């Protein structure tokens, strides 16, 4: 993956977020093929890693190229923040791969 990251970074803008940064998933409900799970919208998490630039699947779903490429991140969420009445461990987390256009900066 590192090779594709290096190549794509040269021809695409730098990723807007860095590991450790707090982000919030946009609370929107657009039509079409959406890969952001409904349950995580509006929730806050922490950037775990930058995964690389990839063609936008929301565009590819309609037969288009998916350009410009979008930054993809693995974002870590605390389960007890995601689910009301979560009965598992307090340290449980869930990691979700999310595209940059679904994320906005969140307060600490």
């Amino acid at each position, binding site marked *: 993956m590192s090779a594709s990251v290096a190549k794509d970074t040269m021809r695409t803008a730098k990723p807007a977020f860095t590991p450790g940064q707090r982000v919030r998933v946009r609370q929107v409900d657009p039509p*079409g093929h959406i890969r952001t799970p409904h349950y995580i919208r509006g929730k806050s998490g922490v950037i775990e890693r930058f995964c690389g630039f990839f063609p936008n699947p929301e565009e590819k*779903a309609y037969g288009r190229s998916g350009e410009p490429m979008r930054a993809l991140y693995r974002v870590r969420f605390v389960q007890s923040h995601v689910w009301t009445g979560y009965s598992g461990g307090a340290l449980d987390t869930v990691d979700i791969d999310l595209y940059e256009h679904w994320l906005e900066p969140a307060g600490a």
Partner: protein
Amino acid sequence: MHAYHDLGGTPAGPIEQDDHPAVLWEKRVEALLTLVRRRGLLTTDENRRALESLGADVYHNLSYAERRALALSNNMIAKGVFTIDELAAKLAEIDRRKDPLP
């Protein structure tokens, strides 16, 4: 609104863990999907969008392979790979066969 295919967090009940090996026509659906992807006629995202556009009733009333066959034919018609008339003629021909799945 929760899309009908986006089930995360909804009550699921017990997970059905029975083995249900694919029958021949179901394997052919997957083979066709692989073929059209390799030929550049379809992307995974287009396939997923077609599955997510079937409507909740159709989606839930069809089996996994049935809904993938329907989504594939919808995509192929939309892309002009075959026409609705050609599909109808082929289905009629299959109906006339003694053994529809030789």
